[in-house]
């Protein structure tokens, strides 16, 4: 592997991004360190996913810069991507392949020995018995858990979750929440984008409120999160619920 890249901080420095005439993000600045679970909270379409995509080096900011341990992604090269894990809204799974084949492919893609890792991942995703079934036959919850394991296979330093709880029942939500806490305590930088207030409440260590591409507040999580969220984001905070999934 081309040298171990590691970083102890992720800095978003005055980042803006627009698509043609639509501004997705305006002057976002925030920093995260190992052990943080930063909640990117905001209604749908606030620009959370755009920020997550840019943090994952899949898109470049129109203005401003993102630094990993003080260095820009361009300086760190492809090796940086071994330290980034992304669970996107679209789950990034091949429906035709089985759960085991999906995990094996991505493990090898990251240059890891798949055997031990895949079984362990299937176990913690609760899919050990269905490892050889095609993913197309899985429910949304099962796919979500499988995709979660896939994004953590290579032990990333920076873990990016975009709406990780959609389609999960309460039991699955608490499993995933515990998994995040364990990750953070083991030194990962976790950034969680969601519009679902209740889930984030007990989990995140810091909250960044984003609306219409603008960072409204960035402060440590405190019990009064819900009231403050509604006060800042305005009455329709709850209205931002997804149509089916979530709580």
């Amino acid at each position, binding site marked *: 592997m081309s040298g171990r890249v590691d970083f102890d901080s992720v800095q978003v420095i005055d980042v803006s991004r*627009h*698509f*043609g*005439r*639509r*501004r997705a993000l305006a002057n976002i600045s925030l920093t995260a360190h190992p052990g943080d679970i930063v909640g990117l909270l905001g209604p749908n379409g606030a620009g959370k996913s755009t920020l997550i995509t840019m943090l994952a080096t899949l898109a*470049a900011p129109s203005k401003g810069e993102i630094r990993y341990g003080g260095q820009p992604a361009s300086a760190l090269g492809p090796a940086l991507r071994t330290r980034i894990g992304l669970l996107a809204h679209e789950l990034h799974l091949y429906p035709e392949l089985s759960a085991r084949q999906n995990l094996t492919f991505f493990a090898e893609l990251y240059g890891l020995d798949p055997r031990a890792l895949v079984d362990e991942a299937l176990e913690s995703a609760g899919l050990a018995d269905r490892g050889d079934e095609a993913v197309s036959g899985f429910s949304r919850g099962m796919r979500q858990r499988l995709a979660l394991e896939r994004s953590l296979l290579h032990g990333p330093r920076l873990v990016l979750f975009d709406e990780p709880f959609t389609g999960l029942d309460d039991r699955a939500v608490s499993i995933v929440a515990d998994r995040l806490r364990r990750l953070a305590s083991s030194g990962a930088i976790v950034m969680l984008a969601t519009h679902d207030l209740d889930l984030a409440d007990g989990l995140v260590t810091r909250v960044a409120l984003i609306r*219409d591409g603008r960072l409204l507040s960035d402060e440590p999580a405190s019990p009064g999160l819900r009231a403050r969220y509604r006060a800042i984001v305005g009455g329709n905070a709850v209205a931002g619920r997804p149509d089916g999934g979530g709580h």
Partner: protein
Amino acid sequence: MRKAFGPLAAITGLMFAGAPFMVARAPYESSMGLVQKIFYFHVPSWFAMFTAIGVCGVASLFHLFKTSPRADRIAEAAGEIAVLFGLMGLVTGPLWGRKAWGVWWIWDAKLTIALLLEMTFISGILVRKYGGPGSDKLAAAVGIFGLAVVPFVYQAVNIWRTIHPLTSVVPTLPATMGGPFWFCVAAYMLLLVVLLMMRVNLGKRQAALDELYLAYED
């Protein structure tokens, strides 16, 4: 640059005004007679088209790797203007061919090459129009590939078909014919520069409008 536009446009206009006089005074060609004089408007349009393709290719390369909006505007402008000059060539060519070879369109090498390049750069415009956000990078790829394919198109089509007067005729032009020819080439090149400046300016204003929309949203 901006203040140079006025005089440049004036000179271009004057040169285009003077071109017919120059061409009219040029000698008669023995075998093809008067129709050969289309040569003075047909060939320079290729010179201008290939220059525009070159500008578009280089600007696309710059935009793709350096993501500079300015290079993108120049690439878009040069792409459009390459299509314009290509159109001129593709119309004046058959007009000349009609008399000289008796038929409007023949699969002659030069015309086929021009047609292929014209289609390539029209596809560049189409991708900008229908490609949605991020299509400027895709158009840049078309610009680069369009430039890279020119030698291959030349080679393949030349070997395949050619009854076009060899391009070697240009250097052997006598002084009395050379004069008006290079005058027309200069006029076309100036027209290219003037159109480029106008189109880039349009691109700049469009970007300013987008900027205003963004500012308006803030």
